[in-house]
């Protein structure tokens, strides 16, 4: 009799503990990332280029962030650079069209030429690659001022920089 009673108590305690595990799950404050943009930004700025493209398709908020928050692209452009570029670089880049444009027009084509796929092996950029990207960016800017094409390679004139966006045919 006594044995049966203890077992019953034991089972009740076990059930109580199981429901309290459930309650633990429910007690967790519901976290919604779209209400915590700072946290969302922390994740976005650590994504690689193609993943940012994917992220911009998630919803309107993410699309707006990836389109309008240039600091996300700034992180992306110089992520693998050993020493960050000097502070004097930023106003120039912003004046020439911003970091997103720098990435799309110069960094991305250079990176994809260095590797087979868009998802480049993570390696440290040399100072020269940074300089190259920035120089190309300046050239792109002047071309636009002179009435050149947009970011699509096919639009541009033969002498344009946009040949960089074409795959290599060796």
């Amino acid at each position, binding site marked *: 009799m006594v044995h049966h009673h203890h077992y019953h108590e034991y089972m009740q305690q076990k059930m109580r503990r199981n429901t309290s595990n459930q309650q*633990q799950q429910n007690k967790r404050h519901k976290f919604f*990332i779209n209400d915590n943009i700072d946290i969302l930004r922390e994740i976005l700025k650590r994504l690689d280029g193609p993943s940012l493209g994917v992220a911009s398709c998630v919803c309107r908020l993410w699309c707006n962030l990836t389109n309008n928050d240039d600091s996300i692209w700034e992180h992306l452009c110089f992520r693998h650079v050993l020493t960050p570029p000097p502070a004097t670089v930023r106003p120039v880049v912003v004046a020439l069209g911003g970091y997103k444009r720098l990435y799309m027009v110069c960094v991305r084509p250079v990176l994809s030429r260095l590797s087979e796929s868009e998802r480049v092996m993570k390696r440290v950029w040399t100072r020269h690659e940074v300089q190259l990207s920035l120089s190309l960016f300046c050239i792109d800017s002047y071309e636009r001022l002179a009435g050149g094409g947009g970011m699509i390679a096919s639009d541009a004139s033969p002498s344009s920089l946009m040949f960089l966006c074409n795959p290599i045919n060796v």
Partner: protein
Amino acid sequence: MAQEASSSTSSKTISLKTGDGEIFEIEASAAKQMKTVQRLIDDLGDDITIPLHNVFSKELPKIIEYYKKDITGEITKDFEAEFVKDLNDDEVKVLFLAANYLDANKLFEFLSQNIADRLESKSVEYVRKYFGVENDFTPEEESKLREERAWSFRGIKEDE
């Protein structure tokens, strides 16, 4: 008298109580790395069990493990890789949110990068589901966006 007792923090331990009522001990120097905890200690004193309403017994031990390594200066890339190796994407998210709540900067940054790495080459649907975000684009808007970003979608596991 009380002042004397708390003057040396190097070997003092702090008691933390999780949202589900379990108590864990950490070194005072580790507590310093979690700004939320340190603030509570400053307000409540270091002899009281510090309540952490939004951190639970599932994740706190892992966080304590990280900061135990941190105070001995032993956090290496290998340690960090090992730390997240057996965690699934949801478990990492829980840890990440706890690190945010605790204002534990080093762990938060590490886990942000880990989550970003895990999201690489995942589909849009996977990312939406992971964060519980709803698609508020019209089908036309979405397909236009995807077309513009076609270069992003090479190599994505679409059905994941």
